[in-house]
């Protein structure tokens, strides 16, 4: 591994995750004050950002090029388990996004967490998170990818449970870790299978890596290894299970809304912009495996479609500002999956562009929305219920305008970044499958609707909460403004956003369909219009019934209760799991009872036997008395020490003598 060669190899990419690692270890061991901690973590991440931008610059314009640097981790029986770094467009773009957004969120946290006396610890955890996230982006080995993926899971666990004194936070942290671990086990099987089938963990290795043509062709050649899929498809399926867990797709989405127990910058960084995108990134990274079996692309698209609709529906019935955004995130992640799946069906390799483009634009506007929400929550005296907000716009102008910029991007308002990326997804879906297109379209309409609903609650009317609303400090608002510019302009800045698409997947992507463009205009404007129509003039508040609920009381209650996903799991999977555990516990108890019984029998026989012999030899007269005494004795202690152990040792000695005699007889 050569970390210091910045010209000929890409070993230096390892510094991108190592920088925050150094900061994290420094903070963990030396425990400096909060300000120093923030400074160290931010400085380290700034170095990562510079290196990331270098990586981005190196790949821009060289999209088809793949550079790797591999090294051996373990060498066993002539086989190497290898690690490595890879630099291609996917790495470059993702690195730039993650470290840029990460840095902005770090700066924001400096102010947001300044009153928390465990600020140093917070930056330590944030740094650990960046290690995992940046690490998995540069990883060129499925195994190394998985290892960083787990580090991301750990950091997420620590950050969600940051306020661990709150039982709900601790429970949410555990739930997140365990739910994603279910997915991780799928990922694990996928990578083990890939290793078995290809003999390597490397993704790119001069033609013999898992994702390269030779291996893919060999994997695709095997027919019907599982559910009618070929080996590549089967591996992809298991990897996708990992992605489902991490990216909060149905049916493993339940952890993500609860994860909002963490501090708001955490929600922005982890549960909107980066970590949850890791699952989508995994699919994009392993895309050659998915393309090798079209059935797998359909699976991805359908899971995405169900998730995006499901979460968009639930978001309509939520009142917690962060929860609305959380469900929105789940929904958008589903849309990215649709992009990858349908995009792959429509455009082959080009599918990567469709999914990844939305991932990148979403990262900016969703980070913006969460940070904006954090600012608003701060301004409204830590209130998160939108029914207790209202009239915020006039009091917090900068935060509100930034928030609205994020909102229109999320609603895919024409010519914002979200519009361009969502349009591409709808276009692909149009080509690939009618039902998926319509599901995605309805979900997008709902997105515009619930975001408008939320904005009406928060910004319009009079303030309904306690205390006074106040604007946040500049350290918090500056990142908001930067992100707002990105959110609106990211698609527009390059009027040739097709370049971005071509760059992301390395193939030429061009799709156009006027009818779809018209539909997506209708969706965005219609959703917003509908929202305004229902909510702009309505009486809102904690004591009022939501206008939609007035019309559809019963279905709305389902939405309020998040369509009972948690309750469903509690009644099914949890029960089954408990029953298994109880069953085994009962069986073990029975075994223990048996053992106790046998113990008593053995002990009694043993002592009876020994005492018989002993007493016969030593004192025949007292035999009866001793026997009954021992039978009646309940002093286990005495029995063992005076009978059993000595007896055993005697047996052992006797046995040894006997063996000696036997041996001498036999060997002669």
């Amino acid at each position, binding site marked *: 591994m050569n970390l210091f060669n910045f010209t000929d190899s890409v070993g230096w990419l390892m510094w991108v995750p190592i920088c925050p690692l150094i900061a994290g270890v420094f903070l963990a061991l030396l425990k400096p004050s909060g300000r120093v901690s923030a400074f160290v973590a931010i400085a380290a991440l700034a170095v990562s950002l510079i290196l990331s931008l270098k990586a981005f610059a190196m790949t821009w314009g060289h999209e088809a090029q793949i550079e790797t640097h591999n090294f051996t*981790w*373990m*060498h*066993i*029986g*002539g*086989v190497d*388990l290898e690690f490595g770094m890879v630099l291609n467009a996917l790495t470059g773009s993702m690195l730039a996004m993650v470290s840029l957004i990460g840095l902005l969120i770090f700066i924001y946290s400096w102010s947001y967490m300044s009153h928390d006396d465990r600020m140093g610890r917070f930056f330590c955890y944030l740094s650990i998170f960046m290690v995992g996230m940046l690490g998995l982006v540069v990883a060129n080995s499925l*195994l190394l990818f*998985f*290892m960083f993926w*787990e*580090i991301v899971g*750990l950091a997420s*666990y620590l950050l969600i*449970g940051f306020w*661990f*004194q*709150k*039982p709900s936070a*601790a*429970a949410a942290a*555990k739930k997140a*870790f*365990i739910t994603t*671990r*279910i997915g991780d*086990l799928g990922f*694990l*099987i996928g990578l*083990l*299978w890939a*290793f*078995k089938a290809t*003999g390597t963990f490397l993704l790119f290795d001069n033609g013999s890596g898992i994702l390269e043509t030779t291996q893919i062709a060999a994997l695709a050649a095997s027919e019907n290894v599982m559910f009618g899929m070929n080996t590549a498809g089967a591996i992809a399926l298991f990897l996708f299970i990992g992605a489902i867990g991490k990216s909060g797709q149905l049916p493993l989405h339940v952890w993500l809304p609860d994860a909002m127990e963490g501090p708001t910058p955490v929600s922005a960084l982890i549960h909107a912009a980066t970590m949850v995108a890791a699952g989508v990134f995994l699919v994009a990274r392993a895309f050659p495996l998915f393309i090798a079996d079209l059935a797998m692309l359909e699976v991805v698209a359908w899971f995405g479609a169900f998730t995006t609709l499901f979460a968009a529906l639930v978001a309509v019935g939520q009142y917690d500002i962060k929860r609305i955004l959380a469900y929105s995130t789940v929904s958008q992640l589903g849309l990215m999956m649709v992009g990858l799946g349908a995009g792959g069906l429509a455009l082959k390799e080009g599918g990567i562009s469709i999914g990844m483009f939305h991932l990148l634009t979403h990262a900016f506007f969703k980070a913006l929305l969460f940070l904006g929400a954090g600012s608003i929550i701060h301004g409204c005296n830590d209130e998160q219920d939108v029914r207790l907000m209202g009239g915020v716009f006039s009091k917090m102008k900068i935060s509100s305008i930034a928030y609205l910029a994020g909102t229109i991007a999320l609603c895919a308002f024409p010519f914002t970044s979200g519009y361009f990326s969502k349009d591409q997804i709808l276009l692909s879906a149009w080509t690939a499958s009618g039902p998926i297109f319509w599901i995605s379209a309805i979900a997008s309409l709902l997105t515009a609707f619930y975001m408008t609903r939320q904005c009406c609650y928060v910004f319009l009317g009079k303030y309904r909460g306690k205390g006074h609303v106040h604007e946040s400090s500049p350290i918090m608002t500056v990142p908001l403004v930067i992100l707002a510019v990105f959110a609106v302009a990211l698609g527009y800045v390059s009027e040739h956003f097709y370049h971005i698409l071509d760059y992301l997947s390395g193939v030429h992507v061009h799709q156009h369909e006027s009818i779809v463009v018209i539909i997506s205009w209708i969706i965005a404007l219609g959703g917003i219009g509908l929202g305004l129509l229902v909510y702009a003039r309505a009486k809102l508040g904690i004591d009022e019934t939501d206008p939609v609920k007035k019309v559809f009381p019963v279905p709305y209650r389902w939405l309020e209760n998040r369509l009972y996903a948690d309750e469903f799991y509690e009644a099914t999977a949890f029960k089954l799991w408990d029953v*298994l*555990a109880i069953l*085994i*516990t009962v069986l*073990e108890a029975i*075994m*223990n009872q048996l*053992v*106790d019984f*046998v*113990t008593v029998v053995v*002990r009694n026989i043993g002592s009876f036997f020994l005492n018989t012999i002993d007493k016969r030899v030593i004192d025949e007269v007292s035999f009866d008395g001793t026997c009954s005494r021992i039978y009646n004795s309940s002093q*286990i202690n005495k029995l*063992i020490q005076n009978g*059993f*152990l000595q007896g*055993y040792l005697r047996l*052992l000695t006797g*046995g040894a003598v006997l*063996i*000696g005699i036997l*041996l*001498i007889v*036999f*060997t002669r």
Partner: protein
Amino acid sequence: MITTITFIPLVAALAIVLAPSANRGMIKILALVGTLISSVLAIQLVLHFDFGGELQFVEKYAWIPSIGVDYFLGIDGLNALLVLLVAFLSPIFVLASWKVDEKAKTYFSLLCLQITALYGAFTALNFFHWFIFWEGALVPVFFLIKLYGGDGRHKAAISFFIFTVLGSVAMLLGVLLLYLNTGSFDFIELRKLAVEGVIFEKLGVLYPTIFVAVMLGLWVKVPLFPLHPWQAAAYAEAPVAVSMVLTGVMSKMGVYGFLRLVVPVFPEAIRDYSNTLLNLTLITILWGAFLALRQSDIKRILAYSSLNHVAYCMFGIFAVGAAMGVDKINAPAIAMQGAILQMFAHGIGASGLFYVAGKMEEVGGTRDIRAFGGLGTVMPRYAFVFSFLIFSSLGLPFLAGFAAEILIFSGVFSIAPIHTGFALLGLLATAIFLLTIIQRIFTGKTNATHFGATDISYGEVLIILPLLVLTVWIGVAPSTWLILSDQFVQTLVSLLIR
């Protein structure tokens, strides 16, 4: 040299017996110095180990020539890592007992005796004195549990004793029959005979019986389902350092025995019965994990967790028997290397966990995790160390548990994918019960009775620090340790796979 290493703790034990019993400080220092000298010498020895070579540092003297008993010691790729394990852990066992004041003389002499037995059991290569050490390791533990254990100690001790003795007797008889048919007590010699097919031939119809008999003793020691019921009680009721000895080293004696005495000597049986063996191991893995889900006694949870983790070793070993051949990833070698690394990694990690769990009893006077809460606020250092070890145990990458388990799974998946799939359920259960421990003890509101609890001292941190460092080292650079056993594993695998 090995003899010196083995018997220095025994000398220390004798010195302790002769020391004035009022002078506890001297007793403890004697125990510490004795184990430390052995450790230093043992580490020194392994540093000079030639990775490419076979058996090294051999000491072989005729002892009872008429029955082929030699005093025969040596280190090869299999026990090098285990000798290191004992060397790293034994001073920590003594330090972890530092607060024992009652009957200190008996306690520390027994502990030193125990350590001699452990070194002996891992280095002896002739069944005769190996068995003496093997049984010798049993007696101090029995007394330590019985004299210094928790409330249920009497029952735990006797159950432990009966299981292991019955297992040992079966093994003894098995090996005697083996001897009568082959004329050798020598592990290396027996292995050679097995390679030549002599053992299979000579034992004839007795072959399966002898195989099972020999295996029984080890099966109890590991332990594997269904001979495990002694384990939880013994681990739970033993004093802290003894729990550490039991889980850290004694459970590895069983696994070691398999690799020394069963796999090389009965390769045909390991192949023929591989399916049954794998199934029973899989049951053990799930059994331990699911039992731990419903416990509230911290030491019982850790005991069942140990049952689960040590079974992974056997999973790797038995899978080799099921392998049809060497494929392109050399899965059998990977699985077996994983098994050996897991012995080391688990020895380090589990000892650490039992050590920190012992602290709970000091703080709250109970082992019931439900009685705790919010300790993270008042004892941050303790929370950090405990959580660190827990995450290593649940297989967090870059820590010890992951490195070993990923090797086992990589190897076994190629050979028995369905078994592996089920075994992964164990990983899920492990995550659940381990995180539940953290949740119960450290998060939420601080229990009013624990407001005044003092965090672990820097001295205690120092005791546990070597284990934390090793955990990271194994996890980040497993090659350091794997290289010791590489040659051995390749030889053994080629023996098993035809």
